[in-house]
């Protein structure tokens, strides 16, 4: 589910992401009269989800230092190949954590969900060129972070 993945990319905590998606979905349902049927529904819906996750992330940042996600901690003790896979995933999550939130959203929507630049621009309410820049910088950072883990997996 794209909405859940976007929220998780921003918040990096499964419970918080699920809460954000649920409350944003309910908000969207209540406000559906404001949706313009001539425009893309998924862009409208994802904009609400992304905004909810970004708002929650900002509030949390103001509150205190982030606790480590229980979800990530539960992935650390696994045998052999699964461990390597889990390490790769952890590195990916660490990489995402280092990106600005909007770059995370753009990267997930573009590479994981297959959204076009223009659709992401509609979700984030930024020009298409800005989305291209977000995706470019996010990819470059992720490749730099993931490269050692990928080499380890290939060996």
């Amino acid at each position: 589910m794209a909405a859940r993945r976007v929220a998780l990319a921003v918040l990096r905590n499964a419970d918080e992401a699920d809460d954000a998606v649920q409350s944003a979905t309910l908000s969207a349902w209540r406000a559906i009269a404001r949706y313009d049927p001539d425009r893309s529904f998924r862009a409208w819906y994802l904009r609400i989800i992304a905004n909810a996750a970004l708002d929650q992330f900002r509030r949390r940042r103001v509150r205190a230092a982030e606790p480590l996600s229980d979800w990530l901690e539960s992935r650390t003790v696994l045998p052999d190949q699964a461990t390597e896979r889990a390490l790769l995933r952890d590195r990916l999550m660490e990489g995402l954590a280092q990106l600005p939130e909007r770059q995370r959203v753009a990267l997930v929507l573009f590479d994981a969900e297959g959204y076009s630049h223009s659709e992401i621009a509609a979700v984030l309410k930024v020009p298409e060129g800005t989305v291209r820049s977000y995706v470019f910088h996010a990819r470059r950072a992720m490749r730099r972070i993931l490269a050692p883990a990928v080499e380890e997996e290939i060996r």
Partner: protein
Amino acid sequence: MREKSSFSTEPDADLGALLREALTGPAPDAFMARLEAAVRGVSAERDQWDTLARWARPRVALAAAAAAFLLGLGVWRHWSKPGPEPESVALAAAEPQGTVASPGVIWQTVLLEGR
């Protein structure tokens, strides 16, 4: 992950797969069930259904038009089976040979009309 340019305008399938795997939270079905239950719990106002109906109407109409077109195409193909001799072939056979007149014939015609 294959080596790709960060400038590429195509989605990176490898990075995308890793992201989907890493970001798919636990128990997606249970989450969807919770979400549906939560939405069902919110009373839908008339406006909400109206909006959804407005969104769905053109799509339903499009699907109906596509179905009608396909049905029409099927009926047309069924009734327009080729006969023993197509009309174009019959016309071609009836046409006299050498329809392109030679310069000699044209010259003869001009002379006859000149009389």
